[in-house]
């Protein structure tokens, strides 16, 4: 900070000489359009930013929707042709294994109106998924049981993994305990072999039996995954 002691004083007439209201007015005229341009400039920048954010958001939402629901799995149409639709056993299960199970599992919701609600948030999607699971008959079942207790007779009489008529199960895994070993078998088609059922009934020892990785083909030739079945044989 500078300190001036007894600086010569300026007279009022000296100051008055420098008064120039016209130059102030002229400057206003030059400043005003500049301000106007400034508003336009920031307005344009603002609008562009908002549009950018909007586009970015919608892209992110689309991506997240894909992640949650899974997209229509890009099956090679030559693999699942009409011929293979008639004979599901012809599908090589290794193709199905290559599809990430988490994504595939969710892709069942493709079938429903939920898929179209792309703008929903994750939590809303979860609620929809729950509702779907509670109400939709597309869930796979064994003798009408999709989860929980099943009698030995019911299990023994089950011919196949059941599903709604328009969908065909093409493969699944069955997991069970034999003495103290965990067994996982891969089945092509939807049928439950009798030897397998007998083995499970002999050795299950009250431990759960799970049917996982259930793959199906819908009426549009789209490959989907279905939720697992977990059973407790009584």
């Amino acid at each position: 900070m500078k300190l001036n002691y007894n600086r010569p004083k300026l007279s009022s007439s000296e100051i008055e000489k420098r008064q120039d209201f016209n130059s102030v007015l002229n400057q206003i005229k030059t400043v005003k359009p500049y301000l106007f341009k400034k508003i336009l400039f920031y307005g344009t920048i603002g609008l562009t930013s908002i549009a950018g954010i909007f586009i970015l958001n919608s892209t992110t939402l689309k991506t997240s929707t894909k992640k949650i629901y899974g997209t229509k799995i890009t099956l090679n149409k030559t693999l699942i042709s009409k011929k293979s639709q008639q004979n599901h056993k012809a599908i090589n299960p290794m193709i199905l294994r290559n599809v990430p199970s988490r994504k595939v599992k969710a892709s069942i919701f493709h079938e429903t109106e939920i898929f179209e609600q792309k703008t929903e948030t994750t939590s809303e999607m979860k609620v929809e998924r729950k509702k779907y699971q509670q109400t939709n008959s597309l869930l796979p079942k064994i003798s009408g049981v999709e989860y929980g207790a099943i009698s030995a007779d019911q299990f023994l009489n089950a011919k196949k993994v059941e599903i709604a008529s328009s969908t065909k199960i093409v493969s699944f895994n069955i997991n069970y305990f034999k003495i103290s070993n965990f067994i996982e078998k891969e089945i092509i088609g939807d049928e439950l072999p009798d030897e397998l059922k007998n083995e499970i009934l002999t050795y299950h020892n009250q431990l759960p039996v799970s049917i996982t990785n259930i793959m199906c083909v819908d009426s549009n030739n789209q490959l989907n995954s279905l939720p697992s079945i977990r059973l407790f044989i009584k």
Partner: protein
Amino acid sequence: MRVHSNFHQTNQLLQDELDLIKKAQKNPEQFGPLYKKYHEQIFRYIYQRLDDIELAHDITAQVFIKALLNITKYEYRGVPFSSWLYRIAKSELYQSFRDKKAERTINIDTVNVIAIIDEIESDETEENKKQLLNALSLLKEKDVQLIELRFFEKRSFKEMGEILELTENNAKVKTFRAIEKLKTLFLTKKPAL
């Protein structure tokens, strides 16, 4: 150096001024009388804190340009128009300090020194005068502002409050504290707190 403040005006004068403001709000060319009325005191306020006369004139012009650009936003609060101009002047002045276009200067004369020496209850010796100048240069900016407004420009606490955006009482208390700090610096004869 006393700034010719028009702060204390009669109601009639304030009303006449308000009429001028309303005219200027509709047409900027009607701002002329207000410019003439307040140009000198705004210039003196700015020049008091600078050591560059040309820069002081430039900043003064800038103050009136800003005032004209924002005249439509002006709201009458029962105090002279100058309070609003002083606030713009203060803002422009400190902006120029921040931009390093100007150097903050304390301009003091013998009369001011004597007034402050009286305030801090000391003797008017040469040594005390030098010590007072030293103590002033060591004060913080906010305290210098208060001392300048009160003791160099002889403004009322009400006007100080209007310029510094404080209440009258707050301006009074803060000025008292600034003087106390100056007194401490003056008596201890040591560099800054």
